Protein backbone atom coordinates (compact mmCIF):
# COMPACT_ATOMS: atom_id res chain seq x y z
CA UNK A 1 0.00 0.00 0.00
CA UNK A 2 2.83 2.29 0.82
CA UNK A 3 4.22 1.81 -2.62
CA UNK A 4 0.96 3.09 -4.01
CA UNK A 5 1.53 6.32 -2.19
CA UNK A 6 4.88 6.72 -3.90
CA UNK A 7 5.59 9.38 -6.44
CA UNK A 8 3.22 9.00 -9.31
CA UNK A 9 3.36 12.21 -11.21
CA UNK A 10 7.07 12.46 -11.21
CA UNK A 11 7.48 15.58 -9.10
CA UNK A 12 10.13 15.68 -6.43
CA UNK A 13 9.06 14.81 -2.94
CA UNK A 14 10.15 17.29 -0.28
CA UNK A 15 8.74 15.82 2.86
CA UNK A 16 7.29 12.47 3.75
CA UNK A 17 6.18 11.10 7.07
CA UNK A 18 5.58 7.41 7.65
CA UNK A 19 3.49 5.88 10.40
CA UNK A 20 3.91 9.01 12.47
CA UNK A 21 2.61 8.66 16.01
CA UNK A 22 2.50 10.97 18.95
CA UNK A 23 1.23 9.96 22.35
CA UNK A 24 1.26 12.53 25.13
CA UNK A 25 1.63 11.29 28.66
CA UNK A 26 -0.20 13.34 31.24
CA UNK A 27 0.15 13.05 34.99
CA UNK A 28 2.82 11.43 37.07
CA UNK A 29 1.07 8.91 39.29
CA UNK A 30 -2.04 8.02 37.34
CA UNK A 31 -0.87 8.28 33.79
CA UNK A 32 -3.16 9.20 30.96
CA UNK A 33 -2.15 8.58 27.37
CA UNK A 34 -3.43 11.04 24.81
CA UNK A 35 -3.22 9.58 21.31
CA UNK A 36 -2.91 12.75 19.29
CA UNK A 37 -1.46 11.36 16.07
CA UNK A 38 -1.97 7.71 15.30
CA UNK A 39 0.17 6.54 12.43
CA UNK A 40 -0.01 9.14 9.71
CA UNK A 41 1.48 8.70 6.24
CA UNK A 42 1.68 11.88 4.24
CA UNK A 43 3.94 13.50 1.71
CA UNK A 44 4.43 16.96 0.28
CA UNK A 45 5.97 17.44 -3.12
CA UNK A 46 7.98 20.31 -4.42
CA UNK A 47 5.93 23.44 -5.00
CA UNK A 48 2.86 21.70 -3.76
CA UNK A 49 0.34 22.87 -1.19
CA UNK A 50 -1.11 20.10 0.91
CA UNK A 51 -3.93 21.13 3.20
CA UNK A 52 -4.44 19.23 6.41
CA UNK A 53 -8.06 19.78 7.38
CA UNK A 54 -9.62 18.77 10.66
CA UNK A 55 -11.59 19.91 13.67
CA UNK A 56 -9.99 20.80 16.97
CA UNK A 57 -8.46 17.73 18.56
CA UNK A 58 -7.90 16.02 15.24
CA UNK A 59 -4.13 16.15 15.69
CA UNK A 60 -3.43 18.53 12.83
CA UNK A 61 -1.51 21.04 14.95
CA UNK A 62 0.44 18.24 16.61
CA UNK A 63 1.47 17.13 13.15
CA UNK A 64 2.89 20.56 12.41
CA UNK A 65 4.74 20.61 15.67
CA UNK A 66 6.24 17.20 15.11
CA UNK A 67 7.41 18.13 11.66
CA UNK A 68 8.79 21.41 12.96
CA UNK A 69 10.64 19.42 15.62
CA UNK A 70 8.98 21.16 18.51
CA UNK A 71 7.79 17.71 19.54
CA UNK A 72 9.61 14.46 19.18
CA UNK A 73 7.32 11.83 17.66
CA UNK A 74 6.59 8.72 19.71
CA UNK A 75 7.29 6.61 16.66
CA UNK A 76 7.40 6.87 12.91
CA UNK A 77 9.78 8.29 10.38
CA UNK A 78 10.26 11.67 8.80
CA UNK A 79 12.01 12.08 5.45
CA UNK A 80 13.27 15.38 4.15
CA UNK A 81 14.43 15.35 0.53
CA UNK A 82 14.08 11.56 0.62
CA UNK A 83 16.60 11.29 3.44
CA UNK A 84 15.44 9.81 6.69
CA UNK A 85 15.92 12.00 9.72
CA UNK A 86 17.64 10.50 12.75
CA UNK A 87 15.50 10.41 15.88
CA UNK A 88 17.96 12.49 17.79
CA UNK A 89 19.59 15.22 15.81
CA UNK A 90 22.89 16.85 16.50
CA UNK A 91 22.88 20.61 16.83
CA UNK A 92 24.34 21.22 13.42
CA UNK A 93 21.93 18.77 11.80
CA UNK A 94 19.00 20.40 13.52
CA UNK A 95 20.13 23.81 12.38
CA UNK A 96 20.29 22.58 8.80
CA UNK A 97 16.83 21.11 9.15
CA UNK A 98 15.44 24.34 10.58
CA UNK A 99 16.80 26.22 7.63
CA UNK A 100 14.79 24.01 5.30
CA UNK A 101 11.56 23.75 7.28
CA UNK A 102 9.93 26.90 8.61
CA UNK A 103 6.59 27.75 10.10
CA UNK A 104 3.87 30.39 9.97
CA UNK A 105 1.80 30.70 13.11
CA UNK A 106 -1.89 31.04 13.70
CA UNK A 107 -1.84 34.05 15.96
CA UNK A 108 -0.06 37.04 14.46
CA UNK A 109 -0.43 38.83 17.77
CA UNK A 110 1.56 36.36 19.78
CA UNK A 111 3.99 35.13 17.15
CA UNK A 112 6.00 38.35 17.17
CA UNK A 113 7.93 39.33 20.26
CA UNK A 114 6.24 42.54 21.47
CA UNK A 115 9.47 43.88 22.94
CA UNK A 116 11.33 44.20 19.66
CA UNK A 117 10.66 46.04 16.40
CA UNK A 118 9.32 43.74 13.70
CA UNK A 119 12.61 43.86 11.87
CA UNK A 120 14.04 41.67 14.64
CA UNK A 121 11.85 38.76 13.64
CA UNK A 122 13.27 38.67 10.13
CA UNK A 123 16.80 39.61 11.09
CA UNK A 124 17.30 36.69 13.46
CA UNK A 125 17.00 33.83 10.98
CA UNK A 126 19.41 35.61 8.62
CA UNK A 127 21.92 35.99 11.42
CA UNK A 128 21.44 32.55 12.92
CA UNK A 129 21.93 30.82 9.59
CA UNK A 130 24.53 33.34 8.39
CA UNK A 131 22.61 33.99 5.20
CA UNK A 132 23.98 37.39 4.38
CA UNK A 133 27.12 39.42 4.85
CA UNK A 134 26.93 41.89 7.65
CA UNK A 135 26.52 44.88 5.41
CA UNK A 136 23.90 43.12 3.33
CA UNK A 137 21.60 42.07 6.16
CA UNK A 138 19.59 45.29 6.08
CA UNK A 139 19.04 45.03 2.34
CA UNK A 140 18.00 41.42 2.64
CA UNK A 141 15.44 42.27 5.35
CA UNK A 142 13.98 45.07 3.24
CA UNK A 143 13.83 42.75 0.27
CA UNK A 144 11.90 40.15 2.28
CA UNK A 145 9.53 42.79 3.66
CA UNK A 146 8.75 44.07 0.21
CA UNK A 147 8.38 40.58 -1.17
CA UNK A 148 5.71 40.00 1.46
CA UNK A 149 3.86 43.15 0.56
CA UNK A 150 5.15 45.43 3.29
CA UNK A 151 6.07 48.29 1.02
CA UNK A 152 7.95 50.51 1.38
CA UNK A 153 9.95 48.37 3.76
CA UNK A 154 11.59 51.21 5.64
CA UNK A 155 8.16 52.31 6.83
CA UNK A 156 7.73 49.06 8.68
CA UNK A 157 11.15 47.88 9.80
CA UNK A 158 11.41 49.89 12.97
CA UNK A 159 7.80 49.60 14.04
CA UNK A 160 6.69 47.48 16.97
CA UNK A 161 4.21 44.66 16.48
CA UNK A 162 1.44 46.56 18.29
CA UNK A 163 1.70 49.32 15.70
CA UNK A 164 0.80 46.98 12.86
CA UNK A 165 -2.54 45.49 11.87
CA UNK A 166 -3.13 41.75 12.08
CA UNK A 167 -2.61 41.29 8.37
CA UNK A 168 0.63 43.24 8.39
CA UNK A 169 1.90 41.22 11.31
CA UNK A 170 1.10 38.00 9.52
CA UNK A 171 3.09 39.29 6.56
CA UNK A 172 6.04 39.81 8.87
CA UNK A 173 5.53 36.22 10.07
CA UNK A 174 5.64 35.03 6.48
CA UNK A 175 8.77 37.09 5.80
CA UNK A 176 10.40 35.45 8.81
CA UNK A 177 9.53 31.99 7.53
CA UNK A 178 10.83 32.92 4.11
CA UNK A 179 14.10 34.36 5.35
CA UNK A 180 15.95 31.05 5.37
CA UNK A 181 14.73 30.19 1.85
CA UNK A 182 13.06 27.05 3.15
CA UNK A 183 11.83 24.13 1.08
CA UNK A 184 8.76 23.57 3.20
CA UNK A 185 6.67 26.00 5.19
CA UNK A 186 4.27 24.69 7.79
CA UNK A 187 1.35 27.06 7.97
CA UNK A 188 -0.69 26.46 11.11
CA UNK A 189 -4.07 28.08 10.46
CA UNK A 190 -2.35 31.22 9.21
CA UNK A 191 -5.57 33.05 8.40
CA UNK A 192 -8.01 31.96 11.07
CA UNK A 193 -7.28 34.88 13.37
CA UNK A 194 -7.30 37.45 10.59
CA UNK A 195 -10.13 39.59 9.39
CA UNK A 196 -12.10 38.05 6.58
CA UNK A 197 -11.32 40.84 4.16
CA UNK A 198 -7.57 40.22 4.33
CA UNK A 199 -7.51 36.42 4.54
CA UNK A 200 -7.53 36.05 0.79
CA UNK A 201 -4.62 38.40 0.38
CA UNK A 202 -2.53 36.40 2.82
CA UNK A 203 -3.42 33.19 1.00
CA UNK A 204 -2.67 34.85 -2.32
CA UNK A 205 0.69 35.99 -0.99
CA UNK A 206 1.49 32.45 0.03
CA UNK A 207 0.51 31.16 -3.40
CA UNK A 208 2.63 33.82 -5.12
CA UNK A 209 5.62 32.90 -3.02
CA UNK A 210 5.10 29.28 -3.94
CA UNK A 211 5.45 30.18 -7.59
CA UNK A 212 8.32 32.59 -7.08
CA UNK A 213 10.41 30.78 -4.51
CA UNK A 214 9.43 27.23 -5.29
CA UNK A 215 8.43 26.59 -1.72
CA UNK A 216 5.97 23.89 -0.60
CA UNK A 217 3.36 24.27 2.09
CA UNK A 218 1.66 22.07 4.60
CA UNK A 219 -1.41 24.21 5.14
CA UNK A 220 -3.24 23.39 8.32
CA UNK A 221 -6.82 24.59 8.59
CA UNK A 222 -10.32 23.80 9.73
CA UNK A 223 -11.85 25.71 6.86
CA UNK A 224 -12.70 23.46 3.95
CA UNK A 225 -13.30 26.33 1.57
CA UNK A 226 -9.96 27.92 2.38
CA UNK A 227 -8.22 24.59 1.92
CA UNK A 228 -9.87 24.18 -1.44
CA UNK A 229 -8.70 27.65 -2.41
CA UNK A 230 -5.00 27.17 -1.70
CA UNK A 231 -4.27 23.48 -1.79
CA UNK A 232 -3.36 21.09 -4.55
CA UNK A 233 -4.19 18.17 -2.34
CA UNK A 234 -6.36 17.95 0.75
CA UNK A 235 -5.92 15.51 3.60
CA UNK A 236 -8.81 15.15 6.03
CA UNK A 237 -7.80 14.32 9.58
CA UNK A 238 -9.94 12.89 12.31
CA UNK A 239 -8.83 11.71 15.74
CA UNK A 240 -5.21 11.44 14.70
CA UNK A 241 -5.86 9.54 11.49
CA UNK A 242 -5.96 10.66 7.91
CA UNK A 243 -9.41 9.70 6.68
CA UNK A 244 -9.17 10.86 3.14
CA UNK A 245 -6.49 12.38 0.99
CA UNK A 246 -6.60 13.41 -2.62
CA UNK A 247 -6.59 16.22 -5.16
CA UNK A 248 -8.50 19.26 -3.86
CA UNK A 249 -11.20 19.36 -6.45
CA UNK A 250 -11.94 15.67 -6.09
CA UNK A 251 -12.09 15.71 -2.32
CA UNK A 252 -14.40 18.71 -2.31
CA UNK A 253 -16.63 17.88 -5.23
CA UNK A 254 -16.76 14.16 -4.71
CA UNK A 255 -15.96 13.38 -1.07
CA UNK A 256 -15.74 9.67 -0.39
CA UNK A 257 -15.47 9.47 3.37
CA UNK A 258 -18.64 10.04 5.42
CA UNK A 259 -16.69 12.43 7.62
CA UNK A 260 -15.57 14.53 4.66
CA UNK A 261 -19.15 14.56 3.50
CA UNK A 262 -20.25 15.75 6.92
CA UNK A 263 -17.70 18.55 6.91
CA UNK A 264 -18.87 19.60 3.51
CA UNK A 265 -22.50 19.68 4.59
CA UNK A 266 -21.66 21.73 7.68
CA UNK A 267 -19.56 24.29 5.83
CA UNK A 268 -21.41 27.45 4.80
CA UNK A 269 -21.81 27.70 1.06
CA UNK A 270 -24.24 30.47 0.22
CA UNK A 271 -23.45 30.02 -3.46
CA UNK A 272 -24.97 26.53 -3.41
CA UNK A 273 -28.62 27.26 -2.99
CA UNK A 274 -31.18 28.79 -0.75
CA UNK A 275 -31.87 26.23 1.95
CA UNK A 276 -28.82 25.16 4.01
CA UNK A 277 -28.34 21.44 4.22
CA UNK A 278 -29.38 19.69 7.40
CA UNK A 279 -26.62 18.25 9.51
CA UNK A 280 -28.00 15.40 11.53
CA UNK A 281 -24.85 13.74 12.78
CA UNK A 282 -24.52 13.97 16.53
CA UNK A 283 -21.67 13.37 18.87
CA UNK A 284 -18.33 15.01 19.17
CA UNK A 285 -14.70 14.22 18.50
CA UNK A 286 -13.82 11.09 20.49
CA UNK A 287 -11.78 11.16 23.67
CA UNK A 288 -8.17 10.83 22.57
CA UNK A 289 -7.31 9.09 25.82
CA UNK A 290 -9.56 6.16 24.96
CA UNK A 291 -9.91 5.75 21.27
CA UNK A 292 -12.04 2.92 19.91
CA UNK A 293 -10.16 0.02 18.30
CA UNK A 294 -12.13 0.35 15.13
CA UNK A 295 -12.75 3.36 12.99
CA UNK A 296 -12.74 6.45 15.23
CA UNK A 297 -15.59 7.95 13.27
CA UNK A 298 -17.77 4.87 13.63
CA UNK A 299 -19.82 6.16 16.62
CA UNK A 300 -20.97 9.17 14.60
CA UNK A 301 -21.13 7.55 11.21
CA UNK A 302 -24.51 7.15 9.56
CA UNK A 303 -23.26 4.33 7.37
CA UNK A 304 -21.36 2.36 9.99
CA UNK A 305 -21.20 -1.37 9.56
CA UNK A 306 -20.48 -3.93 12.26
CA UNK A 307 -16.94 -4.49 11.01
CA UNK A 308 -16.16 -0.78 11.50
CA UNK A 309 -16.17 -1.41 15.22
CA UNK A 310 -13.58 -4.15 15.01
CA UNK A 311 -10.73 -2.85 12.99
CA UNK A 312 -9.40 0.40 11.65
CA UNK A 313 -10.18 0.37 7.92
CA UNK A 314 -7.25 0.41 5.52
CA UNK A 315 -6.50 3.21 3.12
CA UNK A 316 -8.17 2.36 -0.18
CA UNK A 317 -7.29 3.91 -3.48
CA UNK A 318 -10.35 5.46 -5.11
CA UNK A 319 -8.77 7.55 -7.82
CA UNK A 320 -5.50 8.97 -9.00
CA UNK A 321 -3.74 10.13 -5.83
CA UNK A 322 -7.06 9.79 -4.00
CA UNK A 323 -7.22 7.52 -0.99
CA UNK A 324 -9.85 6.98 1.64
CA UNK A 325 -9.84 5.13 4.95
CA UNK A 326 -13.30 3.61 4.84
CA UNK A 327 -14.84 0.22 4.16
CA UNK A 328 -17.56 1.71 1.99
Amino acid at each position, binding site marked *: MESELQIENGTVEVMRVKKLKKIFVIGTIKKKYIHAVNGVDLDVKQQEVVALVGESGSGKTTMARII*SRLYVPTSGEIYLDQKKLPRKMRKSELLKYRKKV*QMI*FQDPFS*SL*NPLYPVKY*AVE*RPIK*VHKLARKDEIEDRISELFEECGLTPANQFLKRYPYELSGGQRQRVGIA*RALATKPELILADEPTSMLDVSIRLDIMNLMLDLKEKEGVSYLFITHDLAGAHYVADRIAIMYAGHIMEVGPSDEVINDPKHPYTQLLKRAAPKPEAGLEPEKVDVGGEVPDLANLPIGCPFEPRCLFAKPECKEKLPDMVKVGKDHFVRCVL
Partner: protein
Amino acid sequence: MNYVRMFFKDKKILVGATILLTMVFVAIFARYIAPYSPHYMGFTPLESPSFKHILGTTATGQDVFSRVIWGTRMSLAVGLLVGLFTTVISVILALISGYFGGIVDNVISLFINVFLVIPPLPLMIVLAAYMPSRGMWTIILVITVTGWAWGARTLRPQIMSLKNRDFVKASIIVGESSFHTIFIDILPHTLGLIVANFFGTAMYAVISEAGLEFIGLGNVNDISWGTILYWAENDQAMFFGLWSWLLVPGILIALLGTSMALMNFAVDEIINPKLKGEKNG
Protein backbone atom coordinates in the same frame (compact mmCIF):
# COMPACT_ATOMS: atom_id res chain seq x y z
CA MET B 1 9.36 52.85 26.63
CA ASN B 2 5.89 53.11 27.98
CA TYR B 3 6.69 51.28 31.20
CA VAL B 4 9.44 53.66 32.12
CA ARG B 5 7.11 56.62 31.83
CA MET B 6 4.47 54.83 33.90
CA PHE B 7 7.13 54.05 36.44
CA PHE B 8 7.85 57.71 37.04
CA LYS B 9 4.27 58.85 36.92
CA ASP B 10 3.03 56.44 39.55
CA LYS B 11 2.31 58.09 42.91
CA LYS B 12 3.03 54.97 44.91
CA ILE B 13 6.41 54.64 43.29
CA LEU B 14 7.13 58.30 43.85
CA VAL B 15 6.45 58.01 47.58
CA GLY B 16 8.25 54.68 47.87
CA ALA B 17 11.28 55.84 45.94
CA THR B 18 11.51 59.08 47.92
CA ILE B 19 11.59 57.21 51.21
CA LEU B 20 14.05 54.67 49.90
CA LEU B 21 16.39 57.22 48.37
CA THR B 22 16.34 59.37 51.50
CA MET B 23 17.39 56.36 53.50
CA VAL B 24 20.11 55.50 51.01
CA PHE B 25 21.34 59.07 51.33
CA VAL B 26 21.31 58.87 55.13
CA ALA B 27 23.11 55.53 55.04
CA ILE B 28 25.85 56.82 52.76
CA PHE B 29 26.38 60.05 54.65
CA ALA B 30 25.76 58.66 58.14
CA ARG B 31 29.18 59.92 59.20
CA TYR B 32 28.18 63.53 58.50
CA ILE B 33 24.57 63.39 59.61
CA ALA B 34 25.00 61.68 62.96
CA PRO B 35 26.00 64.21 65.61
CA TYR B 36 28.05 61.74 67.68
CA SER B 37 29.84 58.46 67.28
CA PRO B 38 27.35 55.64 67.62
CA HIS B 39 29.73 53.77 69.89
CA TYR B 40 30.59 56.58 72.30
CA MET B 41 29.23 55.71 75.75
CA GLY B 42 30.08 58.82 77.71
CA PHE B 43 26.67 60.52 77.90
CA THR B 44 24.30 60.43 80.83
CA PRO B 45 22.42 57.13 80.50
CA LEU B 46 18.68 56.84 80.04
CA GLU B 47 18.01 60.43 79.17
CA SER B 48 14.77 61.55 77.60
CA PRO B 49 14.83 63.35 74.28
CA SER B 50 16.35 66.77 74.42
CA PHE B 51 18.06 69.21 72.08
CA LYS B 52 21.36 67.56 72.79
CA HIS B 53 20.03 64.08 72.29
CA ILE B 54 17.09 64.25 69.93
CA LEU B 55 16.05 60.72 70.73
CA GLY B 56 17.56 60.44 74.18
CA THR B 57 20.33 58.12 75.34
CA THR B 58 20.66 54.41 76.03
CA ALA B 59 21.30 52.61 79.28
CA THR B 60 24.99 52.66 78.47
CA GLY B 61 24.97 56.36 77.69
CA GLN B 62 24.97 56.23 73.90
CA ASP B 63 23.18 58.74 71.70
CA VAL B 64 20.11 56.98 70.28
CA PHE B 65 19.80 59.34 67.31
CA SER B 66 23.35 58.69 66.16
CA ARG B 67 22.80 54.97 66.49
CA VAL B 68 19.57 55.20 64.49
CA ILE B 69 21.36 57.08 61.72
CA TRP B 70 24.18 54.55 61.56
CA GLY B 71 21.68 51.73 61.85
CA THR B 72 20.19 52.73 58.50
CA ARG B 73 23.23 51.23 56.84
CA MET B 74 22.74 47.70 58.02
CA SER B 75 18.98 47.59 57.65
CA LEU B 76 19.25 48.86 54.10
CA ALA B 77 22.17 46.66 53.22
CA VAL B 78 20.44 43.53 54.46
CA GLY B 79 17.24 44.41 52.62
CA LEU B 80 18.87 45.21 49.32
CA LEU B 81 21.41 42.41 49.38
CA VAL B 82 18.88 39.75 50.32
CA GLY B 83 16.62 41.16 47.62
CA LEU B 84 19.46 40.79 45.13
CA PHE B 85 20.51 37.28 46.18
CA THR B 86 17.02 35.83 46.38
CA THR B 87 16.17 37.38 43.02
CA VAL B 88 19.19 35.78 41.39
CA ILE B 89 18.41 32.40 42.92
CA SER B 90 14.72 32.50 42.11
CA VAL B 91 15.28 33.68 38.54
CA ILE B 92 17.77 30.90 37.88
CA LEU B 93 15.57 28.21 39.41
CA ALA B 94 12.42 29.50 37.77
CA LEU B 95 14.14 29.62 34.39
CA ILE B 96 15.48 26.11 34.63
CA SER B 97 12.23 24.78 35.97
CA GLY B 98 9.87 26.70 33.74
CA TYR B 99 11.80 26.47 30.51
CA PHE B 100 13.09 22.93 30.51
CA GLY B 101 10.19 21.31 32.34
CA GLY B 102 10.09 17.57 32.87
CA ILE B 103 11.55 15.91 35.91
CA VAL B 104 13.84 18.83 36.70
CA ASP B 105 10.75 20.99 36.91
CA ASN B 106 8.99 18.52 39.18
CA VAL B 107 11.92 18.39 41.56
CA ILE B 108 12.44 22.14 41.62
CA SER B 109 8.80 22.98 42.11
CA LEU B 110 8.52 20.47 44.91
CA PHE B 111 11.55 22.07 46.48
CA ILE B 112 9.96 25.51 46.08
CA ASN B 113 6.71 24.42 47.65
CA VAL B 114 8.44 22.74 50.56
CA PHE B 115 10.36 25.90 51.33
CA LEU B 116 7.21 27.95 51.06
CA VAL B 117 5.35 26.11 53.78
CA ILE B 118 8.19 25.75 56.26
CA PRO B 119 7.68 28.66 58.66
CA PRO B 120 10.60 30.99 58.09
CA LEU B 121 11.25 32.34 61.57
CA PRO B 122 11.80 29.03 63.35
CA LEU B 123 13.98 27.90 60.47
CA MET B 124 15.92 31.13 60.62
CA ILE B 125 16.34 30.73 64.35
CA VAL B 126 17.62 27.20 64.06
CA LEU B 127 19.91 28.20 61.21
CA ALA B 128 21.21 31.30 62.95
CA ALA B 129 21.69 29.48 66.20
CA TYR B 130 24.00 26.97 64.56
CA MET B 131 26.01 29.47 62.59
CA PRO B 132 29.56 29.61 63.83
CA SER B 133 29.68 33.38 63.67
CA ARG B 134 27.07 36.04 64.04
CA GLY B 135 26.76 39.24 62.12
CA MET B 136 25.32 40.84 59.05
CA TRP B 137 26.48 38.22 56.57
CA THR B 138 25.09 35.40 58.67
CA ILE B 139 21.77 37.16 58.77
CA ILE B 140 21.82 37.77 55.04
CA LEU B 141 22.57 34.11 54.43
CA VAL B 142 19.85 32.93 56.77
CA ILE B 143 17.17 35.18 55.29
CA THR B 144 18.20 34.32 51.76
CA VAL B 145 17.92 30.61 52.48
CA THR B 146 14.40 31.02 53.81
CA GLY B 147 13.22 33.69 51.38
CA TRP B 148 14.10 32.63 47.83
CA ALA B 149 11.13 30.35 47.26
CA TRP B 150 8.63 33.18 47.04
CA GLY B 151 10.04 34.69 43.89
CA ALA B 152 10.67 31.37 42.23
CA ARG B 153 7.06 30.47 42.81
CA THR B 154 5.71 33.59 41.12
CA LEU B 155 8.21 33.57 38.26
CA ARG B 156 7.95 29.94 37.25
CA PRO B 157 4.40 30.00 35.84
CA GLN B 158 5.18 33.25 34.06
CA ILE B 159 8.13 31.66 32.30
CA MET B 160 6.11 28.58 31.50
CA SER B 161 3.41 30.64 29.85
CA LEU B 162 5.96 32.71 27.95
CA LYS B 163 7.60 29.55 26.74
CA ASN B 164 4.29 28.53 25.20
CA ARG B 165 3.84 31.81 23.38
CA ASP B 166 4.19 31.57 19.65
CA PHE B 167 7.07 34.00 19.42
CA VAL B 168 9.19 31.69 21.53
CA LYS B 169 8.21 28.73 19.37
CA ALA B 170 9.10 30.84 16.36
CA SER B 171 12.52 31.50 17.83
CA ILE B 172 13.11 27.80 18.33
CA ILE B 173 12.01 27.02 14.80
CA VAL B 174 14.21 29.77 13.43
CA GLY B 175 17.06 27.86 15.05
CA GLU B 176 17.97 30.10 17.97
CA SER B 177 20.06 28.63 20.77
CA SER B 178 18.41 28.00 24.13
CA PHE B 179 20.60 30.75 25.53
CA HIS B 180 19.24 33.29 23.09
CA THR B 181 15.66 32.14 23.53
CA ILE B 182 15.84 32.29 27.30
CA PHE B 183 17.76 35.49 27.81
CA ILE B 184 16.79 37.59 24.82
CA ASP B 185 13.30 36.38 24.02
CA ILE B 186 11.85 35.34 27.36
CA LEU B 187 13.62 36.99 30.25
CA PRO B 188 12.99 40.65 29.33
CA HIS B 189 9.26 40.00 29.61
CA THR B 190 9.60 39.04 33.23
CA LEU B 191 11.51 42.17 34.17
CA GLY B 192 8.49 43.77 35.83
CA LEU B 193 7.82 40.70 37.89
CA ILE B 194 11.48 40.44 38.83
CA VAL B 195 11.54 44.05 40.00
CA ALA B 196 8.31 43.59 41.93
CA ASN B 197 9.75 40.50 43.44
CA PHE B 198 13.00 42.18 44.35
CA PHE B 199 11.14 44.75 46.43
CA GLY B 200 8.85 42.12 47.89
CA THR B 201 11.73 40.07 49.26
CA ALA B 202 13.70 43.14 50.25
CA MET B 203 10.76 44.15 52.41
CA TYR B 204 10.59 40.70 53.87
CA ALA B 205 14.32 40.85 54.58
CA VAL B 206 14.11 44.19 56.35
CA ILE B 207 11.39 42.89 58.65
CA SER B 208 13.05 39.55 59.23
CA GLU B 209 16.39 41.10 60.00
CA ALA B 210 14.78 43.35 62.58
CA GLY B 211 13.04 40.34 64.10
CA LEU B 212 16.20 38.26 64.27
CA GLU B 213 18.21 41.09 65.77
CA PHE B 214 15.40 41.83 68.17
CA ILE B 215 15.52 38.37 69.68
CA GLY B 216 19.27 38.56 69.85
CA LEU B 217 20.22 36.24 67.04
CA GLY B 218 22.38 38.77 65.28
CA ASN B 219 25.51 40.26 66.66
CA VAL B 220 24.10 42.49 69.41
CA ASN B 221 27.10 44.79 69.09
CA ASP B 222 26.27 45.60 65.48
CA ILE B 223 24.34 48.77 64.96
CA SER B 224 21.07 48.25 63.18
CA TRP B 225 17.49 49.23 63.89
CA GLY B 226 16.89 45.68 65.07
CA THR B 227 19.71 45.73 67.62
CA ILE B 228 18.64 49.17 68.84
CA LEU B 229 15.23 47.67 69.56
CA TYR B 230 16.91 44.66 71.15
CA TRP B 231 18.70 46.92 73.61
CA ALA B 232 15.62 49.04 74.15
CA GLU B 233 13.68 45.95 75.14
CA ASN B 234 16.58 44.51 77.10
CA ASP B 235 17.20 47.68 79.06
CA GLN B 236 13.48 48.16 79.61
CA ALA B 237 13.20 51.44 77.81
CA MET B 238 9.46 51.24 78.23
CA PHE B 239 9.56 51.44 81.99
CA PHE B 240 11.81 54.45 81.86
CA GLY B 241 9.34 56.10 79.52
CA LEU B 242 11.94 56.38 76.78
CA TRP B 243 9.38 56.11 73.97
CA SER B 244 11.63 57.57 71.33
CA TRP B 245 14.18 54.82 71.79
CA LEU B 246 11.44 52.26 71.23
CA LEU B 247 9.30 53.94 68.63
CA VAL B 248 11.64 55.61 66.19
CA PRO B 249 13.60 52.55 65.01
CA GLY B 250 10.32 50.69 64.62
CA ILE B 251 8.77 53.48 62.60
CA LEU B 252 11.83 53.52 60.37
CA ILE B 253 11.65 49.78 59.81
CA ALA B 254 7.99 50.12 58.98
CA LEU B 255 8.71 53.04 56.65
CA LEU B 256 11.44 51.20 54.82
CA GLY B 257 9.23 48.13 54.61
CA THR B 258 6.33 50.22 53.34
CA SER B 259 8.46 51.97 50.75
CA MET B 260 9.47 48.61 49.37
CA ALA B 261 5.93 47.29 49.57
CA LEU B 262 4.72 50.36 47.67
CA MET B 263 7.23 49.81 44.92
CA ASN B 264 6.33 46.14 44.78
CA PHE B 265 2.63 46.86 44.58
CA ALA B 266 3.00 49.64 42.04
CA VAL B 267 5.16 47.55 39.74
CA ASP B 268 2.56 44.81 40.07
CA GLU B 269 -0.07 47.30 39.00
CA ILE B 270 1.96 48.31 35.98
CA ILE B 271 2.31 44.69 34.95
CA ASN B 272 -1.36 44.05 35.53
CA PRO B 273 -3.16 47.33 34.81
CA LYS B 274 -6.51 45.91 35.90
CA LEU B 275 -5.49 46.29 39.54
CA LYS B 276 -5.51 50.04 39.12
CA GLY B 277 -8.42 52.11 40.23
CA GLU B 278 -9.96 52.53 36.82
CA LYS B 279 -11.83 49.69 35.31
CA ASN B 280 -10.26 49.12 31.97
CA GLY B 281 -10.78 45.99 29.99
